[in-house]
C-alpha cells in the first residue's frame, strides 16, 4: 500500500458522519438544563436550602413543555421514527446480548443501527417519565396564580389532585435515578463518542464502522 493510499484510508476513517443535527442537540441540552432546574427547585427546599422556588420552577416547566412539544412535532416529520422504534431486531439483539454476557455464546452481539437497544430503552423511559411530569405539572399550574389566569383549586376533585401530585412527585424522583445513570453512561470511556456527538454533532467514519451496522443505519456518502 503506497503512502497516497494510506493517507486516503486515514482521511476516510477520520471523515465525519453527522449523528445529531444542531437543532436536535439544542433540544437535548435545553431539556437537560430545564430538567436540572426543575429538580433543583423541587428538591433543594426539601433538603433544607430555602428560597423562592415556585416561580423558577413553573417557568422552567413551561420551557420544558415547549421543548417536548417541539420534539413531538419535529421527530416524526424530520427524523426517522424507525431509528428509535423498538422492533423484532432489538429483541433478537437483547437475546444475543444476554447470551454473550452470560457466556453462553462467544460471538459478540450484532452491531446496532443508529441507536442501541439500551439507548432506545432510556429514550422510551425518559419519554414516559418526562411526559408524566409535564402533563401533571401543567395541570398543577391551574392551582396557582400566573400572569394569564387566577388559581382554581376546585378544577379537579381533591382525590384526583392527590393522584396528580403523586404522579408528578414519582416522575421527579425517578428522574433523579435516571439522570445519575444517564450521566454515568455518558461519561464511560467506551460511550464518549456518543457524548461528543451530542455536543459537536458527529462521529468519525471509523467509529461508525466499529459501532454500527451500516445495513441498519445507512448514512449518506
Amino acid at each position, binding site marked *: 500500500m503506497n503512502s497516497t493510499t494510506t493517507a486516503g484510508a486515514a482521511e476516510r476513517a477520520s471523515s465525519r458522519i453527522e449523528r445529531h443535527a444542531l437543532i436536535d442537540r439544542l433540544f437535548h441540552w435545553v431539556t437537560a438544563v430545564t430538567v436540572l432546574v426543575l429538580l433543583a427547585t*423541587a428538591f433543594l427546599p426539601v*433538603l433544607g436550602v430555602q428560597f423562592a422556588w415556585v416561580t423558577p420552577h413553573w417557568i422552567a416547566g413551561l420551557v420544558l413543555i415547549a421543548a417536548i412539544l417541539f420534539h413531538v412535532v419535529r421527530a416524526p416529520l424530520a427524523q426517522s421514527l424507525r431509528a428509535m422504534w423498538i422492533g423484532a431486531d432489538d429483541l433478537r439483539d437483547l437475546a444475543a446480548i444476554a447470551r454473550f*454476557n452470560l457466556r453462553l455464546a462467544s460471538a459478540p452481539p450484532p452491531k446496532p443501527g443508529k441507536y442501541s437497544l439500551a439507548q432506545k430503552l432510556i429514550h422510551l423511559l425518559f419519554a414516559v417519565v418526562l411526559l408524566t411530569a409535564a402533563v401533571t405539572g401543567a395541570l398543577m399550574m391551574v392551582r396557582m396564580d400566573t400572569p394569564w389566569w387566577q388559581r382554581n383549586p376546585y378544577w379537579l376533585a381533591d382525590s384526583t389532585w392527590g393522584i396528580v*401530585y403523586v404522579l408528578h*412527585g*414519582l416522575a421527579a*424522583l*425517578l428522574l*433523579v*435515578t435516571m439522570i445519575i445513570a444517564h450521566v454515568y453512561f455518558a461519561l464511560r470511556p467506551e460511550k464518549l463518542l456518543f457524548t461528543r456527538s451530542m455536543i459537536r454533532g458527529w462521529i468519525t467514519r471509523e467509529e461508525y464502522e466499529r459501532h454500527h451496522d451500516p445495513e441498519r443505519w445507512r448514512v449518506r456518502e
Partner: protein
Amino acid sequence: MEILRVSRDVYGREVLEGISLDLFWVFFAAGIAFVCVHALYRWLLAPKR
C-alpha cells in the same frame, strides 16, 4: 419513612397530598447503587469484546 403524604379535610376524611419527597435519598441511592454495580460488573465480570 412514609411513602405517601396524606392530610385530613374539614370533614375528617383522608386526602392524598402527594408522594413523600423524603424518598429523594432512596432514589438517589438507587442511582448510585446502579452505577456501582454496573461499573463493578464491567470491570470484573463482563466478557471482553
